[in-house]
């Protein structure tokens, strides 16, 4: 426990003294996982809506794939993205391995099934009569989708939080495709692994705490947005 206490003190010290390297790693983690979450929303939300509202051949298979994808092991994603990005791999000519772009690609692969799966669940839980009513009063398809998105905004925000939480905390894929290169591709999770390997447990604990605080802050913000429109349940009298 002494060690944890030392780690907490060290984390505070690193944060308050504004240690340039730690701040850089923290901001970089936020950038990579933020970009990956953003991109996975662009892919995942339309995909989730499509799966929830349309029936097509292979629909069941697609839904199963997305549900499986929600639990994709990051290290497996890392392995396959690495092989694709190797110099000898199909995308080798782009020279992307060990760059932030490679990390974003891997994280999008991890996050978009989570976003798609939760979006699908959110839309499926809407009352089907709602679409009928909206169509009945003459809503166009874009208007319909927009209104349904508004209706499902609470679970959609939960999807964003789950996607972000999944990628900011993963280490396997970032380590493999990013290489944990100092000043280039080092994020909070890979730095924690490195410091543990070096035997610098205080710094490792400090980095872990910073990661927790960061995740907490982002989720606090999103929860705040989500809960300000919370339905007020009638009080039992």
């Amino acid at each position, binding site marked *: 426990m002494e060690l944890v206490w030392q780690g907490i003190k060290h984390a505070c010290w690193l944060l308050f003294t504004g240690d340039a390297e730690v701040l850089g790693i923290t901001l970089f983690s936020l950038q990579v996982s933020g970009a990956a979450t953003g991109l996975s929303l662009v892919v995942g939300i339309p995909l989730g809506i499509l799966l929830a509202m349309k029936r097509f051949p292979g629909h069941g298979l697609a839904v199963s794939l997305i549900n499986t994808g929600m639990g994709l092991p990051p290290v497996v994603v890392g392995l396959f993205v690495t092989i694709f990005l190797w110099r000898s791999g199909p995308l080798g000519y782009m020279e992307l391995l060990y*760059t*932030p*772009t490679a990390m974003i690609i891997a994280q999008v692969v991890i996050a978009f099934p989570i976003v798609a799966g939760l979006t699908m669940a959110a839309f499926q839980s809407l009352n089907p009569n709602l679409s009928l009513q909206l169509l009945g009063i003459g809503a166009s398809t874009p208007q319909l989708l927009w209104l349904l*998105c508004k209706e499902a905004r609470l679970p959609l925000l939960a999807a964003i939080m789950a996607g972000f939480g999944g990628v900011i905390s993963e280490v396997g894929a970032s380590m493999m495709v990013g290489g944990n290169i*100092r000043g280039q591709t080092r994020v909070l999770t890979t730095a924690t692994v490195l410091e*543990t390997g070096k035997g610098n447990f205080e710094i490792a604990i400090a980095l872990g705490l910073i990661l927790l605080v960061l995740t907490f802050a982002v989720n606090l913000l999103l929860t705040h947005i989500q809960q300000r429109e919370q339905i007020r349940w009638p009080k039992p009298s």
Partner: protein
Amino acid sequence: MQKKFSFPTLLAALAFVLAVLSHLPAGEAAGKNIILSTTTSTQDSGLLDVLVPLFEKKSGHSVKTVSVGTGQALELASKGEADVALVHAPSLEKKYVADGKLLNRRLVMYNDFILLGPASDPAQVKSTKSSPKSSIDAMKRIAASASRFVSRGDNSGTHNLEKSLWKQAGIEPKGAWYIESGQGMGATLGIANDRNGYTITDRATYLAFRKRVTLAILLEGDKPLLNIYSVMEVNPANGPRINVAGGKTFADFMVAPETQALIKSFGVEKFGQPLFIPVAGMREEQVGE
């Protein structure tokens, strides 16, 4: 419904954040990037944090250091996924050089491996002046007494050294006493310490973990326990887009006199002793004499 934070504004904000974030630095100009495949021990010791920035400043190249086990580091280089390798498994290295996958093997530095174990020493491997023991003897005694031994089991340089000791002792280690951690040296030391077993570690990692490890050094200074690091260039025929010139520049840098002087002084301040001893230009037989 409150209108302050409506869903469209939120989506617009997200799109904006995304646009800003996607302007991350992409790969630098080709030919300037060097991929160095190396071992966890060079990275964990902190040596590369000193040498790589210096090299980048001097040469104008940008180095991407990938630290993995020696086995993987050599395999990456032989597939052309790296431009230069800095590793520590002489017998394995010589195979890759003989196959023509790696070129121009040059010694850089060495330190040594040590055999750690519980202070009670159930296998009686402790080497003293009155009863000196070789590392091969020690392995035989550990196996004969079925004392717990924690192996890296990850084809790293340290694991290769351990395997060669078992081979020389004529033993195929298996059984409940033989634990394969499959992890890095730090984690393996933790397991050995926790389970009160014997293990082999490089000295640099031991020094970093000394405060948390209660195991004693039972055997050191034996010739087979030398831990020799070499640098090798990658055969351009191994694959596309290998930065041959960059790899050679880095290899030359590692054996240059100024770099060797830096290696000699590295770690003295923190540990009271150097972590690596430079040996560029020596032949393997001369090391440790």
